[in-house]
């Protein structure tokens, strides 16, 4: 057992003590650092893209470079940032603490999955040397089998990253099943755990299909097998089935952990027992299951049969139900609670607004005939950015701000934290709301050039993206500054009632708890 004053950060020193650590908290921090690095990189690409779109035609790059940049932006943000995002960083840090466990079930596998992630990232960046990919992050056939550039390397990178995701999910599911503290029944688990658990189900059940899809794509490109290539008698629409069988559930790998974080934030910062614990818990599982039944709504205009399109359209509406259950339960939790507008709560409220817009426009897109008009326009771009950035990333930032005192033992500046959250919300709406408008008017996505009538929208959007970028950079700088100048954090600054606040030191020791916690009540019993 650790001596007083020793915690997981200062108990061992040196590079090797980090690089070879089996401590879930350190691995979580390593993930967090890597993910933030790639977030900044992907964000930089986004700003370059927006700058190019300031005026019609050539602004700062040519069309080929534009295609490569939006592919890189998409691939990095999807495979290196949002999919690992919350589970690998915050989940790794908080999940065992919340369950009262000493570590995840397989610490070595956990470290391995981090290095698989690093390897995948290196291969992805390596594809730039061979030649940047211009297929979009979806790698649609048959273009991806004919275009030049490092498609094989980029696809290999996504393949490798998939395994990192699988191992993370596997670890969390086993940890949740087998390593709960005495008295921690399923319904005493914090909702964050439920969300990460549901995410784990998808990571286990969907990611393998990505692996085989990408493997087939590589084989198709190298050996020309003819499963997807129409020239050889294959069916390119089948590739889309394969791809979206993974990638639609992957959307829920992205958003479910976000919802999981929000459940914690809303309860803690309202200091009120969460309203509808079981509906929120089960709606996570329901979303995980439903996510496997709706992939065809990405393919309404791809040549898929109308019959299947109609079935997928109807099934898609079902997704709105569990999402709605969550939203209303969160609202009811805040009702008559003592809401304190601390920085994490501001991110959570931002999530509310943005995710509501993103979710509802998703229903528009799920309607078969409306989608024929809106498909592949900026409307879709705006929709998924509202969900992915406005939903997941707002929750991610909220979660980082929420657990930052526990991670580092430092308090950040409330003023700058709040200011950056507000700036992100403003910048975000400026960037993406106009994209709904131009999308509805027919501005296609992934286009380098556009008609003059869209100029004003694009310019507003670009200015907004600068504000948004500045907001995120400010948010990160606020955190970094707190490492140096921040006040020492108390043990439980937010008066949380889950184990990571009540039973650990201000900064947890290496084995998390000084004595094995015994759970006697739910995680939202505030006093």
């Amino acid at each position, binding site marked *: 057992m650790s001596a007083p004053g020793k915690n997981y950060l200062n108990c061992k020193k040196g590079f090797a003590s980090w690089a070879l650590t*089996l401590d879930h908290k350190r691995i979580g921090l390593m993930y967090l650092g890597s993910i933030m690095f790639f977030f900044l990189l992907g964000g930089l690409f986004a700003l370059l893209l927006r700058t190019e779109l300031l005026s019609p035609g050539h602004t700062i790059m040519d069309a080929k470079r534009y295609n490569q940049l939006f592919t890189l932006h998409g691939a990095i943000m999807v495979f290196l940032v949002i999919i690992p995002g919350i589970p690998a960083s915050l989940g790794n840090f908080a999940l065992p603490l919340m369950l009262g466990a000493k570590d995840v079930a397989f*610490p070595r596998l956990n470290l391995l999955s981090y290095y698989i992630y690093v390897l995948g990232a290196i291969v992805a960046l390596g594809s730039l040397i061979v030649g940047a990919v211009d297929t979009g992050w979806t790698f649609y056939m048959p273009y991806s089998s004919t275009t030049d550039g490092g498609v094989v390397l980029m696809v290999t990178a996504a393949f490798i990253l998939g395994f990192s995701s699988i191992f993370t999910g596997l670890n969390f599911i086993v940890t949740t099943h087998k390593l709960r503290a005495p008295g921690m029944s399923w319904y005493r688990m914090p909702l964050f755990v439920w969300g990460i658990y549901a995410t784990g189900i998808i990571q286990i*059940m969907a990611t393998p299909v990505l692996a085989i899809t990408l493997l087939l794509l590589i084989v198709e490109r190298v050996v020309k097998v003819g499963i997807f290539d129409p*020239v050889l008698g294959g069916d390119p629409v089948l590739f889309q*089935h394969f791809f979206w069988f993974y990638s639609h559930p992957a959307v829920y790998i992205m958003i479910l952990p976000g919802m999981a974080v929000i459940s914690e934030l809303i309860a803690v910062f309202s200091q009120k027992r969460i309203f509808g614990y079981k509906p929120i818990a089960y709606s996570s599982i329901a979303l995980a299951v439903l996510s496997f039944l709706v992939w065809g709504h990405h393919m309404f205009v791809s040549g*898929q*049969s109308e019959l*299947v399109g109609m079935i997928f359209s109807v099934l898609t509406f079902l997704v709105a139900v569990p999402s709605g259950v969550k939203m209303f339960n969160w609202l009811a939790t805040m009702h008559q609670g003592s809401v304190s507008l601390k920085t994490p709560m501001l991110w959570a409220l931002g999530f509310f607004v943005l995710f509501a817009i993103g979710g509802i426009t998703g229903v528009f897109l799920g309607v078969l005939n409306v989608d024929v008009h809106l498909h592949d326009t900026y409307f879709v771009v705006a929709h998924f950015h509202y969900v992915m950035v406005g939903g997941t990333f707002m929750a991610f930032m909220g979660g980082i701000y929420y657990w930052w005192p526990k991670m580092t033992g430092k308090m950040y500046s409330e003023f700058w934290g709040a200011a950056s959250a507000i700036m992100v919300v403003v910048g975000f709406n400026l960037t993406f709301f106009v994209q709904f408008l131009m999308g509805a008017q027919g501005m296609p996505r992934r286009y380098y050039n556009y008609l003059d009538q869209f100029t004003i929208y694009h310019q507003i959007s670009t200015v907004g993206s600068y504000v948004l970028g500045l907001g995120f950079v400010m948010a990160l700088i606020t955190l970094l500054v707190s490492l140096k100048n921040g006040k020492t954090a108390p043990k439980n600054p937010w008066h949380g009632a889950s184990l990571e606040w009540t039973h650990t030191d201000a900064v947890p020791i290496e084995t998390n708890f000084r004595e094995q916690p015994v759970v006697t009540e739910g995680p939202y019993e505030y006093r």
Partner: protein
Amino acid sequence: MSHIHKVEGPAPHVLPVGVYWTVFGALLCLTALTVWVAEFDFGTMSTTVALLVATTKASLVLACFMHLWFDNKFYGVILGATFVFLSLFILFCVMDEGSRTLIDPERANFLPRDQKVLQYKTDHPDELALRPGLKDPVKDELNFEGPHSQEE
């Protein structure tokens, strides 16, 4: 976090060896059955019959060799979920391929593929240089070795 200490472990759950040999015998019989059954033509049911036998064999391996019958039933739930999702995947893909001509046969991009491809190839004999196996440089190397083993 990887300190290991020796403790007393749980007692193993031992099955008599005879059970394993019996299951192995059953698996051999089923293999013979599936080869024998393939001689008969059940029309569209043939694949179903073959899959039924294969599923029985797999269940035997799962239940006995993999101890699923005696182990935590949650492993069975994992397996069941896997097969449900896989079946949905197969079902929707095949349904899509099968119903593309249902509403608007003219619109169908890929089906009926055989007829369309055939028509195109008849109309454009010189195109489709990528046509597998029959592309010009390889034509001389064409192999005329037929199917071996079964004669019908």
